[in-house]
């Protein structure tokens, strides 16, 4: 039966030391969650998984550009916009719309990826939370898959 143990720390070094000790005691990296009210760049968790935000921005840009081409070229041709004898498709001017929609796609996809990867906006997102984080405390949650791990977590985090 999974169980969860948490502890509150006054300082970042103490919390990081506890996190490192939990890892040494056999906890998986994803079983330890460190909460703080500012980024802790030295944390093991921060660099733990790779972000796809950059790739999603590129994907969004490609989709944005594609939709811009569809919007400008296809619709203008279908509607048959009156251009006074000039070509209906004007790459220079349509390119401006394509640029804006490329950027828009990149922005929206980056946002979507960020929200997804960070688990924001989900029901029950605040389930494992302690509001002392807002007062500058560092909180560590340890997910324990066995009684032995619960015991270890209590011993390590008890020092907090």
């Amino acid at each position, binding site marked *: 039966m999974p169980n969860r143990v948490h502890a509150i720390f006054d300082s970042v070094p103490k919390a990081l030391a506890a996190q490192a000790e939990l890892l040494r005691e056999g906890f998986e990296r994803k079983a330890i969650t460190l909460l703080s009210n500012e980024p802790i760049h030295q*944390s093991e968790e921060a660099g733990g998984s790779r972000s796809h935000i950059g790739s999603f921005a590129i994907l969004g840009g490609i989709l944005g550009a594609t939709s811009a081409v569809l919007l400008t070229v296809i619709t203008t041709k279908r509607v048959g916009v009156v251009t006074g004898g000039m070509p209906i498709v004007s790459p220079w001017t349509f390119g401006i719309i394509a640029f804006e929609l490329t*950027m828009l796609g990149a922005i929206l996809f980056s946002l979507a990826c960020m929200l997804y990867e*960070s688990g*924001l906006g989900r029901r029950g997102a605040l389930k494992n939370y302690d509001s002392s984080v807002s007062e500058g405390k560092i909180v560590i949650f340890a997910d324990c898959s066995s009684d032995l791990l619960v015991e270890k977590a209590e011993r390590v985090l008890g020092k907090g």
Partner: protein
Amino acid sequence: MSKEDVLKSNINSDLLRPVFKTGIGWYITVAISGSLLLAAMGAFGYQLYSGIGVWGLNRPVMWAFDITNFVFWIGISHAGTLISAILRVTGAEWRRPVTRCAEAITVFALMIGAMFPIVHLGRPYLFYWLAPYPNSRGLWPNYRSPLLWDFFAINTYLLGSLIYLYLPLIPDLALVRDKAKGLRHKIYSIASLGWRGTQVQWSRLEKAVGVMAVIIIPVAVSVHTIVSWDFAMTIRPMWHSTIFGPYFVAGAIFSGIAALIMAMAVIRKVFHLEAYLKPIHFNNLGLLLLTMSLLWFYFTFAEYLTSYYGNERVEKAVFQSKISGAYAPLFWAMVVCCFVIPMPILAIKKLRTISGTVAASALIVVGMWLERFLIIVPTLSQPALPFNWGSYRPTWVEITLTAGTFGYFVLLYAVFTKLFPIVAVWEFKEGLTLADHAGSVAEPQRLVAHGD
């Protein structure tokens, strides 16, 4: 306890105080700015009822105050997101207390600027005809039109700026959520999207803000370039210029920084944020302003010299009207406001104080509004054929609408400061931690976490 530690322990209470406590100054600000906005709404209602004949527009001057305001406010919007993004990308540490003040300016200035083409339509309730969607009228937007480029560019920039403002705000919304009670707690809980402050969330947030900063810079540049093309794509004297794009972008950043300095000074005074918005921030922004002032002067000189040297009849007529004709008082006022007075104030270190930079900024904002007016009206009042020349005088409706935009801007900003921390709390704390860490990196106890 070091000075930094004392500051760090007070950050939450100092920066969240404006959100939870409301001073009399805030109510006075809202009352004055709200009155200006109400007056403008009255003028707009009168215009809707009577038609745009109540403006001073005529043939040939068909654009005037409304389009001046449009260009001016879009320019002001360049203070925020663009400056913030550049400072983030370049890793300028002093940016931390400044970014949110700046990003909020962008969103509100864009909202106001984007209103004016719609107001100028005459029948603003038909603005949706601009949007590309199948309709029974057989109308379809012409993507060749610079006005349609504006539609796409401004909306992209507005949406991007909103997201760029919102993302770094999420952790601070969570701070307010934890402190608030009742309905307020519920609202901030929704707005903070269940932010907990896990290191994965921090890492994703910083990554996303970094990616957005890179994307938003070319968007911001494109917006004012496209606004300049509203003019440069026509074959009108002193409009059909290849340097209009960069000239407008430089002017936009110039006026934007000036607006940012003024907003920061007011926030600093009203909310007693002297420990956060320090003289160094005004000094650094003052130096940026000085650079932009020189750049603006360079572009203006290049633009006018080309017209003068070309000696084309139609260009020369507009040129003369600005230098020594009917618009000369406004032109020279612009030069004095944008260059002659601000230059020494910003260049001399002793004068580059908070009051000095604010005084220079106030003049620059006025000067840049005049610049926008002088780009638009003299050219329109003297088209190629002299029999068609005319003049322009604004009516009370246009003046009230213009004053109302300033009221609206201040009102939006005041409401924003009441709802959200105007200085990014977590970014400021992170800055202090990084500075502290950099100063004591050799201490062994700091390296405990790196073991294993």
